[in-house]
């Protein structure tokens, strides 16, 4: 936690110094206050509570099969969680698709526990949902490990290429793409700093701390939730939960952060 706090302090101090040079004193001072606020946030993360609930859900028998999730395979073998999140999304032969952690959890809820897709996914976006809790628990099991999203399989490579195209794809009444806001250094919307996902350091700093407790939401958001919300902000329609468009973007973003050391759950604005 302390290492992360000092790392973040350096990262944001750098960003503040860059911006202060270009902006007037008032904006510079406002950005400094925000940086102080962010440093204070590091002292105790409410996501830890949700992580504990995820751990409970992992071992709780549920559904018509009265089974736990402990046999779920995230790509490293049955029930193997250490390092699993760091190598997602990836291809799974049993479903013949590239899946992210949420998609894989739903597969296991359906196949191991006998839940319907509707039962498993209905409340995915609600604060402190079961899926958010489980994603938080699983992500924490990759702490200290490097992000390494595989692209060797034909379908993985394809999803990566699609994710890259989607990142640059402009549409909608404001002509927005992800790249509109996330392809240049040192940019911000109002006073909210924007990571440049074409820059390795920015991509890494952003990706290692998803899922994250979002202070503005009072709950943990998964990466899928955050990317879905970007679609709203770009004035695009809402994509289907677990759809390929979202997973492809996750593949691209996590690949941009390749090698970065995971430190989730994080805490963000």
């Amino acid at each position, binding site marked *: 936690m302390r290492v992360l706090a000092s790392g973040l302090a350096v990262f944001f101090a750098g960003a503040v110094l860059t*911006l202060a040079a*270009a*902006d*007037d004193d*008032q*904006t510079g001072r*406002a950005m400094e206050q925000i940086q102080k606020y962010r440093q204070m946030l590091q002292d105790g993360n409410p996501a830890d509570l949700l992580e504990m609930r995820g751990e409970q859900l992992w071992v709780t028998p549920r559904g018509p099969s009265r089974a736990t999730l402990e046999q779920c395979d995230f790509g490293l073998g049955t029930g193997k969680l250490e390092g699993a999140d760091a190598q997602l999304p990836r291809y799974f032969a049993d479903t013949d698709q590239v899946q992210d952690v949420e998609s894989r959890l739903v597969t296991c809820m359906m196949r191991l526990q006998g839940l319907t897709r509707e039962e498993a996914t209905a409340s995915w*976006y609600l604060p402190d949902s079961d899926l958010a809790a489980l994603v938080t628990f699983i992500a924490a099991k990759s702490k200290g490990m490097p992000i390494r999203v595989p692209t060797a399989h034909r379908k993985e490579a*394809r999803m990566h*290429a*699609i994710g*890259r*195209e*989607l990142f*640059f*794809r*402009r*549409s*909608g*009444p*404001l*002509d*927005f*793409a992800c*790249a*509109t*806001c996330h*392809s*240049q*250094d*040192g*940019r*911000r*919307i*109002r*006073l909210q700093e*924007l990571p*440049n996902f*074409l820059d390795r350091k920015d991509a890494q700093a952003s990706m290692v701390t998803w899922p994250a407790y979002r202070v503005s939401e009072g709950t943990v958001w998964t990466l899928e939730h955050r990317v*879905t*919300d970007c*679609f*709203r*902000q770009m*004035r*695009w*329609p*809402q*994509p*289907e939960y677990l*759809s*390929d*468009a*979202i997973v*492809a973007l996750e593949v691209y973003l996590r690949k941009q952060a390749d090698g970065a050391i995971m430190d989730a759950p994080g805490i963000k604005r």
Partner: protein
Amino acid sequence: MRLSANAIVFVLVSASSVAAADKAAVSNTEATMRRSFSTAMPDDWKARLKQDEVQALCSQYRNNPPPKITARILASQQRTLRYPPGGKMIGDWREGEKLASIGTGGQLSAIRPEVPGAPRGGNCYACHTLASSEVAAGNLGPSLTGFGKMRGTSPDAVKRTYEQIFNVQAFYPCSMMPRFGHNGWLTPEQIADAVAFLLDPQSPVNK
């Protein structure tokens, strides 16, 4: 006020050196987009996912199109310019100031529905500094503080400012800025108010 070729090139150089998209990847992407959204969506929602020619070209060339494409976009976007009935292109700076601060409107989300009747604005402060008294301003676009001081309110200056807000790509193909008028996001009258916010000597932008 014609732009020099150099100015166009300067504006168009993107931060990245990513190569242009290949056709197979684009085709796969369109298919992925089609199946990632509910077929039960209303038609006006679906329309937001369809790219017009400019959006498709700018996406393909990563907002850095080659000269022939640049010329094509310039010509086609110049033809889209529409003006307020009566021709008054500079309106009320107080209304323009309101538009500059409003960031709501036009959101389509079932899990986080927008407040019904949320006003629509230009959200100029998201990307630009304007009045120096407003500290919470973004920097995706250039600073517009003092914009009117440098340009005055001659008919030429008013027309050019109006046109650039109506359709920025009539001057800067593949600019990141939304084509507020052409896309129907703001009405010609609202754009005239934004012009006043930028050019009126009484506007806080110029104080």
